């Protein structure tokens, strides 16, 4: 167990000093400043717009970290053989994968908390002078719940990305496959509902089946998206959230175990 934490520590420390990460944080801060300006362009439901923009920026920054930082870090390990220095020591591939995931996950948690705090601040500032326009039910607990589930969905995407890195031999392929999975994950539910409700596809059981399979393979990322709920301060069903959390964690678990199984069989030539 402490070997996993050790790898996590090294990964975290290495990426936290990565210049690209500063770039992402800086970009996030600029967007929050923009949030205040954008929000000023609307004359109604300011709070909703501010929450929308704020949480979207957190989400976007997390995705950029996954796609352009995390995938690169892990594939560099494999490409430049940094991994030799780790695996030539009494550290197993299981510990390596879990450690990497933990380290990169910590980076995401950090980004979500720093940028999330900034988002909260920008929401507060954007709506400060116009209290009357904040949606009636807007509540900070829902806002932070939205932030939490957003982070969970980022962790799910990270787990898939890690799986793709262990399967493929080229970082670019891994990036493409991860983007592809993310995109499908976001839309699989909508596409499914269109196909099921539209008569156009009723006579095409093949297509229906493909979409059904896809909804089992790719994560339903829309389920984690509470941005609208947070923006309107709508009440959320606790049972539903528990299931979504269970869903997210077991998806992550499946991805990780599969990564480990594949990675243990992979030759590191």
């Amino acid at each position, binding site marked *: 167990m*402490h*070997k996993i934490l*050790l790898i996590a*520590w*090294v990964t975290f*420390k*290495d*990426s936290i*000093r*990565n210049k690209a990460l500063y770039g992402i944080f800086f970009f996030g801060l600029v967007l929050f400043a923009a949030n205040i300006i954008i929000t000023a362009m609307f004359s109604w439901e300011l709070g909703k717009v501010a929450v929308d923009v704020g949480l979207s920026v957190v989400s976007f920054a997390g995705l950029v970290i996954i796609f352009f930082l995390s995938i690169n870090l892990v594939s560099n390990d494999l490409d*430049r*053989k*940094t991994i*030799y*220095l*780790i*695996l*030539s*020591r*009494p*550290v197993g591939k299981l510990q390596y994968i879990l450690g990497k995931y933990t380290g990169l996950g910590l980076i995401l948690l950090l980004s979500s908390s720093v940028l999330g705090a900034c988002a909260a601040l920008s929401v507060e500032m954007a709506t400060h002078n116009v209290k009357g326009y904040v949606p009636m039910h807007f509540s900070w607990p829902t806002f932070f719940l939205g932030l939490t589930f957003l982070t969970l969905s980022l962790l799910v995407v990270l787990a898939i990305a890690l799986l793709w890195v262990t399967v493929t031999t080229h970082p670019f392929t891994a990036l493409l496959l991860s983007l592809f999975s993310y995109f499908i994950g976001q839309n699989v539910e909508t596409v499914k509902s269109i196909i099921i409700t539209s008569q156009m596809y009723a006579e095409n059981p093949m297509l229906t089946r493909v979409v059904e399979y896809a909804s089992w393979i790719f994560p339903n990322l829309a389920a984690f998206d509470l941005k609208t709920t947070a923006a309107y301060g709508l009440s959320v069903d606790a049972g539903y959230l528990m299931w979504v959390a269970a869903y997210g964690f077991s998806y992550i678990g499946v991805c990780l175990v599969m990564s480990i199984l594949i990675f243990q069989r992979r*030759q*590191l*030539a």
Partner: protein
Amino acid sequence: MAAIDFDDISKTFRHGIRRQRALKGMSLAIHRGEIFGFLGPNGAGKSTAIKILLNFIRPDSGTVRVEGLVVGRDRFQHRIGYLPETPCFYENLSGLETLWFAGKASGMDGQGIKENTHQVLSRLDLKTAGAWPVRTYSKGMKQRLGLAMALIHDPQIYILDEPMSGLDPLGRRLITDVILDLRKQGKTVFFSSHILSDVERLCDRIGILDKGELLFSGAASEIVQDGSSLEDAFVRLIEEHEKAKSA
């Protein structure tokens, strides 16, 4: 019991439909306390053998044992120190952090790491650079830091892949001295190299590999004929082998 024992190792790589036989039933034993030079032209299969020894890749057939522990089945990594051909580190960590990580990964406690780090860094002339991030290191410094990582946990067996490549004379001298120190301490060193003069000077025994076959293993003096150098002997041996293959 041999320190390292390659027993009839074969390995074929597949690149699409093309097959490349990297090792053909290689057997080789490295005794405890000796310095063994592993020689061969480029593409002879040296790297493949080392990667199999470290369990990075699996042989198609045959077994490797490290002090009797079967590679791929038993844990043997705590017995060895390894220096890759071109070591790559986490560039944003400092030299000290890298060594701390290496020590921890090898199961050392904080106090032990502290003592050994101090000793190893002064031995390898990295004292001042220890606190700098690795991305500021020169090629030679990285090579030395790689060696420091192999030394930090004071293992019995050292596997060094081209430790001298790309170094200036000073750097080579430093590494040669470290290897000689290790012999004094009774450690086993298995290293591959192109630089035959170093090998001749350092090694108790050598092995010569070509096209995946071990052509010779034994004391260098056994193949060096009077008046000629190890280089002449090496070239002659490889040429004879190539001729025999094409015939």
